[in-house]
């Protein structure tokens, strides 16, 4: 079913937490009941730090964690490039594997079309900055 690495990441996330002084971006997945808060510390167009918190299914939790891991240290444009390629992977479209990194553990979601919204939930935060 799920990739082992996805399950492991969902159960033991590395970037769960809060960043004091940073207003979280709230993301809801209405049909599932997922609620994810994304904290992105951005300065001069660069993501200096990131955390996430909340509740959800294994896919949305693991995805949030891989998202933070992938975008911290990147410029907003680079981060958006990552989310574009990530979304393509999830939607079974042709994507650039080099830009995905550790988040390739989420590839198994591409055979679960109804779960694409779970995998893409945390990514939406970039459009809400």
């Amino acid at each position, binding site marked *: 079913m799920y990739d082992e690495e996805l399950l492991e990441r969902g159960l033991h996330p590395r970037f769960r937490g809060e960043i004091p002084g940073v207003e979280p971006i709230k993301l809801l997945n209405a049909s599932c*009941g997922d609620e994810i808060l994304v904290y992105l510390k951005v300065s001069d167009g660069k993501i200096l730090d990131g955390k996430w918190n909340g509740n959800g299914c294994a896919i949305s939790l693991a995805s949030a964690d891989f998202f933070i891991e992938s975008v911290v240290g990147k410029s907003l444009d680079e981060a958006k490039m990552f989310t574009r390629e990530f979304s393509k992977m999830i939607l079974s479209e042709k994507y650039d594997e080099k830009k995905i990194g550790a988040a390739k553990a989420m590839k198994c979601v591409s055979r679960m079309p109804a779960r694409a919204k779970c995998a893409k939930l945390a990514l939406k935060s970039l459009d809400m900055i």
Partner: protein
Amino acid sequence: MREIYFDNAATMMKYREAIEAEKNFYREVNANPLRGLYKKSVQATTGVNETRKAILELAKADKSYTVIFSRGTTEALNMVANGLVLGRDGFGVVSKSAKVVVDIESHHSNILPWKQRYKNVVMAKKLDAKELFAAEVICLTGVSNVTGQDFSKRIKIVRKTCPKAILGVDAAQMLGHTRIDIKRLGADFMAFSGHKFGAPMGIGGLIIKKKLAEKLRPLNFGGEMVDSVSVDGEPVFAEIPERLEAGTLSVGAIFGLFEAAKISKRNLYEFRCEDVIYGSVGDYVSELIRETADGLKKTKGVKVLAANGGIVTFQVKGVHPHDVAQILADEGIAVRAGWLCAEPFLRYKGWGPVVRASLSEFNTEVEVEKFLDIIEKIRVKMGVENV
């Protein structure tokens, strides 16, 4: 692998007779009802009228009621909510400021049609005198799509408390599944979906008092609902039910609905499964639900939240409902997880998202056993057996 279908509350497995009736309509009749004078059009008209009668019989509705077809419960409730608003066009019964009461158990489709059109919509938690005070329209859940609970008694009490209010029932999970006497319930209207009791998708409607239907503003304007249209003058609308059914109806689905209504009615009074005769189909399904709920209760880490009628709702500790549903899906078992289109109720109960298994007469004990076997392994599979 044959899929085990435990999502009958979302849409019930279909009766073969209903599928055949829809198919045969297009193969052998395929004519527009009401207007054509040729034989096949008359056949279509007769089928539509016979189906209205079959639906009325299913709800024990007398001649003071009629059936207005719609795409389903959602459209039917929108039709009433929209049609009741008093307007300068001469339609409607109550103002937009009227107090409308729906129950907290409501499906989103019994919340949003009202909230979008009325300023004072109360989501009642107790349906006590205070919540019902001065209510002009009350629309209540017949059977909960979350808990399977039948609210017939509660509806009758509300009718007694509010004899003058317009009282409606969201019967999406009710019609065809329980013995209904619309008059004893005291309902002025009842919304239903055919696909929830074995008919094709895309057909449902309103069982509504004729006197009330006459006052409803049509949701759609167009063909079949008007007697005369002129360049300058006002249109002369057709009588009900046609006035409220603009455009060509989904007649194939209506022919399917007729069969489903006939079978459902029969099953409500006797149901045979192999050699066993049950007093009603509900007895058979309830027995399966009892077995499912008992098995779930014995499973470590599983919390059963509700088990009534054809529905058992539960959660697995440490595993999100969607992950439970995904694991079951991968094993060929279809269930529903999440808010079940009843977010206010699940929040009110403090449950959050849930897993729902909803069974029908097409399910068996063997399927329940397989379902329970997989549930038992879920926490190990997700690595949370020690949580």
